[in-house]
């Protein structure tokens, strides 16, 4: 049961990364690309958490925490830039 949940989450993370990179490469507007980068950040955090569980090393969760805070700050700065323009 637990193995099945891990495999399903790994498959979901794989498709998240694949479609996120696809959206980033195709992206029609800048907002599409920024949203794709935000999606990829969230998927990467879940990948780090999954790896922390699989490898049994819970210090990896600290990396996920720092990652979430920093990506939030970066996306906030980018959104402020997009709202205000040049």
């Amino acid at each position, binding site marked *: 049961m637990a193995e099945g949940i891990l495999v399903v989450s790994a498959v979901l993370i794989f498709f998240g990364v694949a479609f996120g990179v696809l959206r980033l490469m195709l992206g029609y507007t800048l907002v599409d*690309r920024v949203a794709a980068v935000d999606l990829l950040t969230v998927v990467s955090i879940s990948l780090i958490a999954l790896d922390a569980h699989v490898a049994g090393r819970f*210090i990896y969760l600290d*990396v996920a925490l720092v990652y979430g805070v920093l990506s939030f700050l970066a996306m906030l700065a980018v959104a402020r830039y997009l709202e205000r323009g040049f």
Partner: protein
Amino acid sequence: MRELVVYLLCASIIASGLLAVRLASLMAAMVSGGLASLFAAVCYVVLGAPDVAMTEASIGSGLSTLIFLYAIRRTAGAEDSAWRS
């Protein structure tokens, strides 16, 4: 399994780096460059170096993105000048 994840992350790093070089808009190129360092940080975690990953995430993905944003804002769309061939 772990090798597959590392290969996927390396392919994503290459795709993000190519996009950062190829994109015409400076803002989109900056976001793609931040994404490349984001994938590099995840790759370091998967390869078993959490401290390197934390430094890469804080400097590469956070600080350099903010500094590039500030620089683009100060130079205000100079990408349309003679630098483009």
